[in-house]
């Protein structure tokens, strides 16, 4: 990926003292996977990319909504510039437990949906209806508590929450964790469409290699808080990814 077209770039990012620096760039329509054994830095890296975790060194740049390139240091600011992040732990950092489906959906997009400072509820309701069809969400009513939804449907609400903001890039931390197979296939289809039709680059951290092989154009394999290998689509096989996760060059 040439630096010029890239939407999100990381330069010289060091996740731990002494770890090797990581360079990374992602451009329109790309789907990049992050893999590695649990705790080898991929989780820190995706959080660093969205400004939730400050790396030891290096900088992250985002080509923002207004065309300017901004440095990602704080999540809320990056989010306002079109960066979206789907957290791993849906229950503690994803859904707002006591609130309704509509509130959970609308919360991130509020700043973009106001008229003279007043929340434009009708337009948000329309959008929720739109994404409900688009993502095949199932729930009783928009005012139902989010807790009554299945894991997969909660994840779709969170996805819709960010899509409503028309993101420039989406980062997803294990997006299909605890999601049933049918919903998972539906989500894959949605991800592919987002990248192919709308050109939104996706960074997907996954603990399932199968998922990365199915979805991603390339994969970064992390080991000991550094980037151990980067495999392009043609080179991506289950054996190679697993070998890289364990620090071996695959045959």
């Amino acid at each position, binding site marked *: 990926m040439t630096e010029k077209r890239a939407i999100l770039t990381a330069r010289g990012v060091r996740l731990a003292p002494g770890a090797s620096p990581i360079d990374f760039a992602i451009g329109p329509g790309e789907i990049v996977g992050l893999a590695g054994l649990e705790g080898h830095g991929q989780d820190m890296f995706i959080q660093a990319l969205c400004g*939730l975790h400050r790396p030891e060194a290096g900088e992250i740049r985002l080509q923002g909504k207004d065309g300017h390139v901004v440095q990602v240091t704080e*999540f*809320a600011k990056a*989010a*306002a510039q079109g960066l979206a*992040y789907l*957290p791993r732990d849906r229950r*503690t*950092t*994803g*859904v*707002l*437990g*006591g*609130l309704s489906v509509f*509130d959970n959906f*609308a*919360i*991130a997009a*509020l*700043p973009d949906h*106001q008229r003279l*400072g*007043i*929340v434009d509820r009708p337009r948000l309701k329309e959008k929720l209806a739109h994404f409900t069809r688009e993502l095949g969400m199932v729930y009783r009513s928009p*005012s139902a508590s989010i807790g009554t939804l299945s894991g997969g449907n909660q994840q779709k609400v969170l996805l819709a*929450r960010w899509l409503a*903001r028309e993101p420039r890039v989406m980062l997803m931390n294990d997006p299909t964790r605890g999601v049933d197979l049918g919903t998972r296939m539906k989500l894959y289809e949605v991800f592919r469409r987002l990248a192919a039709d709308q050109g939104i680059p996706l960074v997907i951290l996954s603990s399932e290699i199968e998922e990365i092989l199915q979805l991603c154009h390339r994969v970064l394999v992390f080991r000991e808080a550094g980037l151990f290998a980067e495999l392009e689509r043609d080179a991506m096989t289950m054996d190679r990814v697993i070998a890289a996760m364990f620090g071996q060059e695959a045959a």
Partner: protein
Amino acid sequence: MSRWLAGRAYLRLAAALFVVLLAVNIALNPVRFAPASLGVTIGLASGLILAAIASMPPILAGRGGIDISVGPLMGLVNVVVVRWLVEGLGIESPFLIVPLVLLLGLLSGALNGLLATVLRIQPIVATLGTSLFYAGITLTIVPSPAGTVPAWIKALAGPTSILPLAAVALLWLLIKRLPFYEQLLCVGSDDRAAYTAGIPVTLVRFLAYVLAGLIAAVGGLCLTGLIGSADPNIAGTYTLLAISAVALGGVSLAGGRGGLVAAVLGAADIFLLQTALTFFNVSTFVLQIVYGTVLTVAVVLNADRLRQLLRRRRHA
């Protein structure tokens, strides 16, 4: 109406108490609650009602958010208006006094917000500090009750007593339609999830304190009308009564649940209790015991834990 209530089960207790206490009060003292004297009666209650509304936003913002400087700020507004503005500078026009009072409230709220959210000092400690500070300044300005106030301020406790309440209610209705209100409730219900939804958590909490200061300042003006002079000793008790009122109204002290109606009902309950008991010439000491009992029982009845236990027993 029933749909509106369905989402607000926490109001049930305060509303029931309100109906009962109102009936008791009307039976005991029909003159005071006659339509003709409604202005005066609301004037008696408006200070407490506004104090309760003022203490709510920081509580809604969650994670131990609380503003205990509401009462002392009202006292400070009282003496600043009487001693400095009216007596010192000779300002009597509402068009000067009201903006200055609001400015004082904004500044105080910003100070609390800065301490409690930007510097992240425990809110109860931060606002305890500012409340001691305000109480001290108040006593320095006016060591003992003194002074008089212009007629329009006095009228705020009489015929026009609904004005400040209506203004705050309008402000609240406006705020409810802003993104800020949704963000406030989200931050209060789960600040980590709110943060990963891209909400500027610190800013939202800061604004909650600013709002508290602003509304408390209006309350201070109403209090000034009620006592008609500068009194450094009266406002301090409002903090605890306001927090009691909010809790009684069913606002969760853990954040994320509550609203204007809850605070108003809670404050009205306490006020009605007060008037009913004073009708029997009950000693103020007994009054305190009754406050304490009612508050404790109300909070226990509103407790989620108790509801869960009851529900479990019903199912078992």
